[in-house]
């Protein structure tokens, strides 16, 4: 610790951090642009100048840039010093010489860091009376607008995009006062993290293009803290609504999960909420011409849920609450997890490894602290994109430490340490079916069949001392690779092993577990990440139940009359021929979902279920972290939460298990009591009766406007706003104005800090956790001193089967996920459906690129458009699973020519 003196007052602070960060952590207001808590300091904007004094006698002092100044004991500075204040004001004056002053028509107006800093410095009078320079803007794809005239050249965009996220196609061009930030030519930004530019940019150069399609001033939205639905990582998001449509997703800081950022699927995949395909009315087949009110539907179903002949099919994309209520409604024995059997097996294995193994599964922020990484069969950028960002930071750790040792410069001196590091990377090995976007920073990559990845993983675990038999017939190259990986992992302190659902193979997960366990026994602080495909895959698995195929058997055997399907399209889980048969044998198919899909076509009763934006609930991410998401707005008309529909069904059928459950808290409490693994899940966030100073937490900023006029075209009397009986949040601007509990922050705002930069004010220390701790609760902790339950099965070497292709899954950040593809911007980024072959196989089967290939899968013919890549193992074919137009499910599966 160090004592520093700021404007005559003494503070005890951490030594070695930069002064700007320290001042902000102390709650002082000091303007800045180029510094960012996740990106460090470069000293470009000169906005954070303060006066530094040698000692008590020094009255003259000199200006220093606080972001570039390491905190040392007895540092003596003044923020309020006249000369420093005048300099800071003039920095804004300079930045404003060319800024267009178009706040009134700028998307960022009112939530703009440049505006805030301008006000903070007191700059109010323009002395510059010459013409401004202007730029041409670029088309950057469906996600971002580009308005270069607003640029203040803080360099944050390229530092995030290139340095932090590894992007290649955004750069800084030209020099002096013509510096230009853009692409070398117009075109779609390629990075999976491009959307963060809208938050990283301190003004309106890069803005959210999807927001612009239905623009609303940021203070005019109703917000709620939410959890991303895009994959299994559970990034924290803020969702904003106006006039009943969801307008924008932005990152919600969580120091343990996603930090400051989001991936583009998470940020932009939200528009399915506003889709024209939404199920918004209750419908009963045969009564399609009648408007059915919910009461009538419930009455209709009253005698159609015979106990024992009614089954429920849950969903990995629905909340724990909804799944739990369905499970209770139909009874444990009649509840089936709505995953394909392949997904089910992987989820079961993942949960088993996490629960029974002695190694900790890290949060994304912990994962970023690893000093060696091994990925077995996972294309992170397409299956768990934000984890890829963590891996990128982890791979910097070793060279960063070396650079700090040789230069004696702290890590936050970003440009300096990057220069000293050059393009060195720490030990990082990727074994996957095909090349991935992280290969460029890997020590070594190896592309082969999933079984062979498993075999190499097995060999690594054996080399690390796992009590398993040696792998037979490993090639010399693979043996050497296994040795190199084992050596690198052993040389590290915090090795991280990653596997998951990415190649549809249990073996890679088992070996990842084996390796991490063996490393831990060698005394390493090993970490194990297993990705999960959907936002609640692990939560659903924790709830536990039967496989989907047993449901199919039961239905086909005629044992079942009614099936209740929760937020699920079974055509994505079952072979479509089986699904067709399944539905033929059901008397009643009750579907609760958001969008019309193939399953909705078969439903006899449709109940409009609220999306994440219209519901409260809890999700469990791949780390086992349970997180609460809050309803952003009340569903229009009869749209309501699935769990509420199901509770109402329970009441209509006098279900004893659901008796007394009415509100969300009732359900989470019942869930918490239902199983030890869910203990405490009702404590994730304060209960519905929580109040601060007698008040709820408002979802709307106090600047919210238009409330009395918004619906004046319908009724000149302002309607009563909806009430939220389930949570301690209100749907209006009324309520407690101060800082809410960290799990309930609907938006970040602080007096004088209208932009997202106000996050600083919510953190215990800048860049660290939120004031009352980062939200979420880990439901699984590693078994202390537990025996590692090593897996000992090793598959045989993959041998292509004549006349067959082994279909393996390929994932796409834009396209593989079910709901996000219903966002126009995301759909624009989707690839056309294809099948990927090794060129030798293509030649053998006499097809060329872009030609059609016919394959028989499970006895049914499918036609695919061919792409080729020599790096794909012969005898395999990559299939972009989940992509619209790809109907094969249950990959890996054998295809017959």
């Amino acid at each position, binding site marked *: 610790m160090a004592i520093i003196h700021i404007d005559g007052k003494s503070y005890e602070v951490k030594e070695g951090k930069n002064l700007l960060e320290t001042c902000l952590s102390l709650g002082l207001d000091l303007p800045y642009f180029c510094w960012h808590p996740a990106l460090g300091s470069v000293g470009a904007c000169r906005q954070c100048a303060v006066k530094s004094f040698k000692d008590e006698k020094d009255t003259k002092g000199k200006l220093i840039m606080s972001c570039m100044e390491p905190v040392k004991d007895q540092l003596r500075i003044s923020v309020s010093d006249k000369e420093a204040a005048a300099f800071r004001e003039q920095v804004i004056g300079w930045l404003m010489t060319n800024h267009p002053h178009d706040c009134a028509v700028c998307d960022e107006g009112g939530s703009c860091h440049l505006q805030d800093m301008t006000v903070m410095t007191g700059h109010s009078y323009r002395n510059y009376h010459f013409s401004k320079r202007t730029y041409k803007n670029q088309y950057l794809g469906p996600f971002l607008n580009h308005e270069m005239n607003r640029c203040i050249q803080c360099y944050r965009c390229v530092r995030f995009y290139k340095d932090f996220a590894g992007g290649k196609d955004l750069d800084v061009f030209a020099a002096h006062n013509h510096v230009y930030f853009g692409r070398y030519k117009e075109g779609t930004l390629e990075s999976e993290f491009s959307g963060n530019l809208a938050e990283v940019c301190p003004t309106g150069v890069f803005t959210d293009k999807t927001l612009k399609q239905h623009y609303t001033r940021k203070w005019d939205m109703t917000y709620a803290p939410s959890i991303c639905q895009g994959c299994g990582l559970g990034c924290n998001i803020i969702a904003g609504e106006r006039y009943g449509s969801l307008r924008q997703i932005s990152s919600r800081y969580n120091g343990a999960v996603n930090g400051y950022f989001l991936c583009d699927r998470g940020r932009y995949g939200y528009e399915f909420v506003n889709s024209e395909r939404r199920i918004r009315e209750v419908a009963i087949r045969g009564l399609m011409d009648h408007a059915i009110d919910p009461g009538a539907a419930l009455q209709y179903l009253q005698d159609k849920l015979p106990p024992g002949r009614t089954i429920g099919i849950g969903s990995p994309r629905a909340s724990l609450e909804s799944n739990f209520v369905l499970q209770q409604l139909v009874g444990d024995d009649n509840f089936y997890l709505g995953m394909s059997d392949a997904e089910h097996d992987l989820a079961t294995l993942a949960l088993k490894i996490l629960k029974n193994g002695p190694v900790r599964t890290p949060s994304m922020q912990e994962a970023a602290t690893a000093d060696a990484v091994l990925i077995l069969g996972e294309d992170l950028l397409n299956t768990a994109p934000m984890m890829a960002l963590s891996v990128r930071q982890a791979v910097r750790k070793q060279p960063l430490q070396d650079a700090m040792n040789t230069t004696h410069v702290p890590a936050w001196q970003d440009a*300096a340490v990057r220069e000293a590091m050059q393009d060195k990377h720490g030990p990082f090995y990727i074994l996957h079916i095909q090349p991935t976007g992280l290969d460029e920073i890997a020590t070594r990559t190896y592309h082969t069949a999933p079984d062979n990845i498993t075999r190499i993983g097995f060999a690594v675990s054996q080399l690390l001392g796992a009590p398993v038999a040696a792998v037979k017939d490993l090639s010399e190259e693979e043996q050497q690779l296994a040795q190199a990986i084992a050596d690198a992992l052993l040389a590290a302190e915090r090795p991280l092993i990653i596997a998951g659902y990415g190649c549809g193979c249990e073996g890679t997960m088992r070996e990842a577990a084996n390796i991490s366990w063996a490393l831990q026994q060698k005394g390493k602080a090993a970490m194990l990440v297993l990705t999960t495909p959907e936002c609640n895959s692990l939560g659903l698995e924790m709830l536990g139940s039967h496989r989907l195929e047993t449901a199919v058997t039961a239905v086909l055997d005629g044992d079942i009359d009614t099936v209740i399907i929760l937020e699920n399209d079974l055509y994505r889980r079952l072979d479509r021929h089986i699904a067709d048969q399944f539905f033929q044998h059901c008397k009643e198919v009750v579907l609760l979902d958001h969008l019309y899909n193939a399953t909705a076509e078969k439903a006899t009763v449709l109940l409009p279920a609220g999306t994440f934006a219209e519901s409260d609930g809890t999700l469990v991410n791949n780390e086992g972290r349970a997180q609460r998401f809050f309803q952003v707005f009340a569903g229009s008309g009869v749209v309501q939460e699935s769990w509420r529909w199901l509770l109402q069904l329970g009441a209509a059928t006098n279900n004893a298990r659901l008796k007394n459950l009415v509100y969300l808290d009732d359900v989470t409490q019942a869930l918490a009591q239902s199983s030890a693994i869910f203990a405490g899940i009702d404590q994730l966030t304060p209960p519905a009766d929580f109040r601060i100073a007698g008040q709820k937490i408002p979802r709307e900023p106090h600047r919210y406007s238009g409330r009395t006029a918004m619906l004046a075209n319908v009724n000149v009397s302002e309607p009563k706003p909806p009430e939220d009986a389930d949570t301690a949040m209100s749907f209006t601007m009324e309520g407690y104005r101060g800082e809410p509990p960290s799990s309930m922050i609907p938006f970040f705002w602080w007096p004088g800090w209208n932009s997202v930069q106000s996050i600083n004010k919510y953190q215990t220390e800048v860049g660290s956790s939120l004031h009352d701790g980062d939200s979420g609760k880990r439901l699984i902790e590693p078994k202390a001193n537990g025996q590692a339950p090593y897996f000992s099965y090793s598959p045989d070497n993959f041998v292509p089967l004549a006349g067959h292709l082994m279909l393996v899954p390929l994932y796409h950040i834009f396209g593989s996920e079910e709901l996000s593809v219903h966002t126009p911007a995301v759909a624009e980024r989707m690839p056309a459906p294809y099948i990927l072959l090794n060129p030798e196989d293509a030649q053998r089967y006499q097809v060329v690129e872009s030609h059609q290939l016919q394959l028989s899968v499970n006895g049914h013919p499918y036609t695919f458009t061919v792409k080729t890549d020599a790096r794909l193992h012969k005898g395999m074919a990559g299939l972009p699973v989940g992509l619209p137009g790809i109907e094969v499910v249950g990959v890996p599966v054998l295809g017959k020519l």
Partner: protein
Amino acid sequence: MEAPLTSDIQPGLSLDLRAYEALGGYQALRKALQQMAPQEVTALIKESNLRGRGGAGFSTGMKWSFVPMNVKGPKYLVANADEMEPGTFKDRWLLEGNPHQLIEGMILTAYAIQATTSFIFLRWAYKEAAQVIRKALSEAYAAGYLGNNILGKDFSLEMHLHTGVGRYMCGEETALLNSLEGKRAVPRAKPPFPQISGLFGHPTIVNNVETLCFIPHIVNKGAAWFQSLSRTGDGGTKIYGVSGRVNKPGAWELPMGVTMRELLEDYAGGMQNGYRFRGALPGGASTDFLTADHLDTPMDFTAVAAAGSRLGTGTMVVLDDQTCPVGFVHNLEHFFAQESCGFCTPCREGLPWTEKILYALEQGHGTEEDLVQLEMHTHLLGPGNTFCALAPGAMEPLQSALKYFREDFEQHVHEKKCPYGNHTH
């Protein structure tokens, strides 16, 4: 009067290897490799009090001594031959006239810091120098002065010529290193200094051409000899230059510490007929004006600084009484604004602002308020406020012009035109 750097240079000719050897060339290299440990070379240079001739005047031996000797991986030496300071043409003389002198100096320097790879970073416009250096490098390689096991010793050095693309910014050593790495020519944060983390993140020394050319002579003749060349405490000779409306503009190698008056009158032949001396930038475009009152200032690092300017590159740009000082400074600020790399705000936005004000003054559109804005810039674009020294350097001629030629600025405002009849379109 000794002129070790230039006495062998013939106008219009370039000394080839044979001629250089005949004049005693590469003897210093032999001596060092045979008789001196690397640290001894550094100690000798330190003792000689050789100060960097690029403009900053930092002790060369001291700079070298910061290079860690026991590190793994490569070390680099770079000759800064990106001579782009307006009014400065001293290195060109050395580069074109005697390339082997530079090469020998570089090999000796590389030996002292145990660098294995070296670069000559040459201004793009020095086409002739590029040709001469290329030829000299191939001669030196052929003769075994470069390459593996130089002169049969356990010391190897590669030397490459790199021609820049014409950015003044590359005169700043860290921007030069970025450029050499293929990155944007923006300066780097210091610390770490290049001696610790320089080219490609490895220990690196960047020295000016003139500085490096002294090394063989100091190794041959010793520190005391080098000191004795000077009239003042700053050792050695210095290449001085004079440009402007003088009778004989040119460059001369003279003892450190000759006075401005000597330079102007004895060497440059005084002002041209009909022109009076009004002032001069003593060390290139980025130094403060000195006036007739300062003509007896010795041109060394200490005395010029005491007079309120900087020795800089030692090449004086003379302002006469018929040249508009506002137009003069406008021309300079136009250059500096254009050469700003655009990294830090005050330089990127402030310099074009001053340029525009000066242009407006010249056009007769200037106001009193503009003069206030100019003053403001000279105060706020000071050292430490900007990321590197470019903008503070750019403010030196402006602030001193405002001080010494204030009445000219005011005349522009009051008469709403340039009293010298300038229209700087």
